[in-house]
């Protein structure tokens, strides 16, 4: 996502939502790697 136009980062709800969305995607990828390595082990 390109840098967002904003005046005050600390009160930018759209930015906070975008951050949460990106974080959840990355978290899901990390969880996927963990489960996949266990599954490969089995």
């Amino acid at each position, binding site marked *: 996502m390109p*840098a967002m136009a904003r*005046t*005050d*980062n*600390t009160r930018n709800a759209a930015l906070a939502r975008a951050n949460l969305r990106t974080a959840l995607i990355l978290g899901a990828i*990390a969880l996927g*790697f963990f489960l*996949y*390595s266990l599954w490969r*082990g089995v």
Partner: protein
Amino acid sequence: MAHAQAHHDEHPTGISRWLFTTNHKDIGTLYLILSLIMFFVGGAMALVIRAELWQPGLQIVDPHFFNQMTTMHALVMVFGVVMPAFVGFANWQIPMMLGAPDMALPRMNNWSFWILPFAFTLLGSTLFMQAQGGAPSAGWTLYPPLSVQGGMGTDFAILSIHMLGISSVLGAINIVVTILNMRAPGLTLMKMPLFVWTWLITAYLLLAVMPVFAGAVTMLLTDRHFGTHFFDAAGGGDPVLWQHVFWFFGHPEVYILILPAFGVASQIIPTFARKPLFGYESMVYASASIAFLSFIVWAHHMFTVGMPASGELFFMYATMLIAVPTGVKVFNWVSTMWRGSMTFETPMLFAVAFVFLFTIGGLSGLMLAIAPADFQYHDTYFVVAHFHYVLVSGAIFAILGGTYYWLPKWTGHMYNETLGKWHFWLTAIGFNLAFFPQHFLGLAGMPRRIPDYALQFTEFNQWSTVGAFILGFAQLLFAYVVWQTAKGGQKATSRVWEGAEGLEWTLPSPPPYHSFATPPKIK
């Protein structure tokens, strides 16, 4: 504006400021303090090892405790010193370099840090459980069957590694989100400082491999306590599976430790050469290539385990390929210095030493990559010499140089240049004295991870021990310089260094508690 600024500088005082902080600068400071403390803990363990190796025979510690020291020294230095130090740099610098007010997920940032002291307390507490087997002693690689048979220290290590992994993954998520979403308007990816680029790539590596390590230690835990046989040949498992899974994590981990160091060197060298970084784009692509290649070279750590020749060849050639992007980087740093107006303040001394000494570590790495030759070098002191050139004169020198470089920005005071130079020279001389002779020891056949050795290895070991003690005690000087600078001294300007470029140098030194609440415009 003055009123707004004053409002922005309000923060809780006392212990609650540090416990509940969501401020990237405070969290960066916490990471760096933790790293400094662990540096002395891990360093003390190294000195126990070197003291025991002063002469052949058993003098100071028994072999089991010696094994605990080698294992804990590595775990502490990798997870407790180098990683937290670079995350500390990232917390301080990335938001300021991007013109962002803070990290993207500040509360998660607090949690990422505060997991660590508890994880290390858990790990360190095993040293006080000698009756139950003491600390983990199977080496930081935790190879079964040793790690399956060991005392409960290994269980503590497994839980501790899970906590460290969670902290790292949360930290990595935070860094990626910050870099992708929080850049000031106009700051495109290819305009970012190289330190930010190397951290973006490092964070992806962390996301990919820390969960794999968590998977591996989970299987180790179930083998130890819940009747599985993942790594037990008698039960249909395979100890070599551990080696593959561990090194699938372990090799990218090496680049997790070194890529941010590349980033730091790429910030320091242009500043003191007073020239823009040579080949910025090629630096970015070289970092990404190194990260990609790091996933397909893991079995070069286990050439002697018994692999098909085609496997040995693949991992040998893939490993050698890494020399290409690494060479690009080294030549770019040298080209940046070429005909620059160079001065040699302490950060630059560390950066130049980094380029020179890290390259020695890279070249001994190439020697180790040659599969047939590795059969001779494997598990000898040559390997110990190699990775200390990569991790001490690579990662640690970048951390020390980066600290001198940014300390005036963080504290608002200049450090004592004379003491800084003394620290550098003692560190550089002590380091080379400690580790260069280990190449010869390894080539002569001295195995690693042993408390006793044959008589003919004595002299080089004594050189090495003298060097290690110089290196270790020189770090007390570093701690003193940092403490002195934090306390006071000559005021630093905003830009600090004549040749410094970037958004962080537009802020006052020290920067206000909340910086870039309104994003700057990038042309």
